[in-house]
């Protein structure tokens, strides 16, 4: 589905991503792990087109992603959550989610204004889809709260919900559990596991919480200093010496 082929990205001589190639298969959860500063978020930013790599190709369903501006990434079916939460703080939770549904006809916003019945139907559909997601994430109770007033954990969930509600083919999750409580982390892991089946999409998950990652993913790609150092099933990765070394090295 998504394929990175020989991607290299550097910022003023510093290599953030180095000749990286991997593939995200359909309907599965792929994890991208690595120590802090290994280049994980840079890779995600390449996929969401915030960064343009100097070398390599990124294709999605055979389409060359690098030809698209960032605002059209959502239109081809890629949605993402943000490591540091990027919600509309002044808007309610349900409005934040409704914006997630907007890309599907954003060009029709104007004409939509003048066709009331259709506008009303759109509005109803958007609300229903938002509510489904809220229910999935078990946050219906805070639907009308202003998102800026929520706890960090709830904001992370709303951020995830907004990505989900756009019905992507590929969902990019940037440290969805970072900074949340242990209890929420475990609950989140079970929810993420359900996503491919429930929403029919592939997931690329970034995290450095090994427990979370290895517990939910089918495929793991390990990077360090921008290069891939291992790739395999969670079981294979657990036994990979280089991975253990990278992590031990970091944590000692």
């Amino acid at each position, binding site marked *: 589905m998504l394929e990175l082929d020989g991607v290299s990205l550097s910022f003023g001589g510093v290599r953030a991503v180095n000749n990286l190639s991997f593939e995200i298969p359909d309907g599965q959860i792929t994890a991208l792990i690595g120590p802090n500063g290994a280049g994980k978020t840079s890779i995600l930013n390449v996929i*969401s087109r915030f960064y343009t790599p100097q070398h390599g190709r990124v294709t999605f369903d055979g389409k060359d992603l690098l030809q698209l501006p*960032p*605002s*059209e*990434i*959502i*239109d081809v079916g890629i949605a993402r959550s943000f490591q540091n939460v*990027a*919600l*509309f*703080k*002044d*808007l309610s939770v349900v*409005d934040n989610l*409704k*914006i*997630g549904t*907007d*890309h599907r006809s*954003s060009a029709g*916003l*104007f004409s*939509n*204004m003048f066709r009331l019945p259709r*506008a009303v139907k*759109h*509005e109803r559909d*958007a609300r229903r889809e938002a509510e489904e997601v809220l229910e999935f994430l078990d946050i219906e109770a805070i639907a009308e709260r202003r998102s800026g007033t929520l706890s960090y954990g709830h904001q992370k969930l709303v951020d995830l919900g*907004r990505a989900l509600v756009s019905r992507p083919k590929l969902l990019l999750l940037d440290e969805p559990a970072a900074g949340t409580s242990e209890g929420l982390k475990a609950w989140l892991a079970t929810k993420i596991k359900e996503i491919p089946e429930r929403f029919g999409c592939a997931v690329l998950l970034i995290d450095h919480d090994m427990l979370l990652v290895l517990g939910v993913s089918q495929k793991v790609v390990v990077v360090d200093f921008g290069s891939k150092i291992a790739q395999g099933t969670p079981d294979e990765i657990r036994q990979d010496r280089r991975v253990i070394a990278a992590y031990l090295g970091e944590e000692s």
Partner: protein
Amino acid sequence: MTLFFQLIVSGLGFGAVYALGAISLTVIFNTSNVVNFASASLSSAVALLMWLALVRLHLSVVLAWLFALVAAMVIGAVVEAAFLRRVERSSLIVQIVMTLGLLVAIEGLDGALYGFNPKTLPHVIHGPSIAIGSVFLDRNDAFILGLTLVLTLVLYLVYQRTRLGLALRAVASDRDVASLMGIQTQRMVSLSWAIGVLLAGVSAILIAPSISLTPTFMENVAVFAFAAAVLGGFGSLPGALVGGLLIGVMSNLISGYLSNNLQLTFVFLMILLVLYIRPNGLFGKRVMSRQ
């Protein structure tokens, strides 16, 4: 007692005009974060175009309105694209200088085109004033008040109940995130300038028959509208409406019972007082500040 009620009723007409002006400022500020000091000259320009269409080109009333309204939206979008977009990442002071520059430039341009001699626009609604007991309500004022309420309601519904409104609110809340969400933020900013100048233009067309139409005739009105927006908590539509009506009525009462000369002074003293007690204005939730 008649005087008291007459002051209130008369105040509502101008109050509605201040409210429209304040809503215009609010709509523009919300999406683009720009305080549009050029509002006075932009709205005068629209009223002058109305005059051109109606008096010079002898268009029918409906056509003239259509012409003026479309022109207003085009002017708003063009001003945004040609001038404000260039300074959208600049400092607040640069943007203030830009809108002040536009204020002077557009007035000068209109002066060159139309001259500064007072012109007249016909009232939208004709006929004698409506008598309510011993108090009189000007038909034109009644129309302005009604139209302002309807426009505010429509705008409120668009903002709260439509996807377009949601997109506008999203851009207002966080332009960068909106862009990440696939919202065409540039288009939303253009649109809000178009709507903003439209509303200010409508207010100018409606009030022009009561005062004299010149390239600078909205300056004084714009000062009150600005005050109304601040009072309402810059950013809130209901706040702008209430702020405008309140200022229209209060300035009339102040002028009627205290001193006509100190109208503006007392209005601003009142605003200082409100801001002292409620720094975000009567309806405000966001403080006017920039990082």
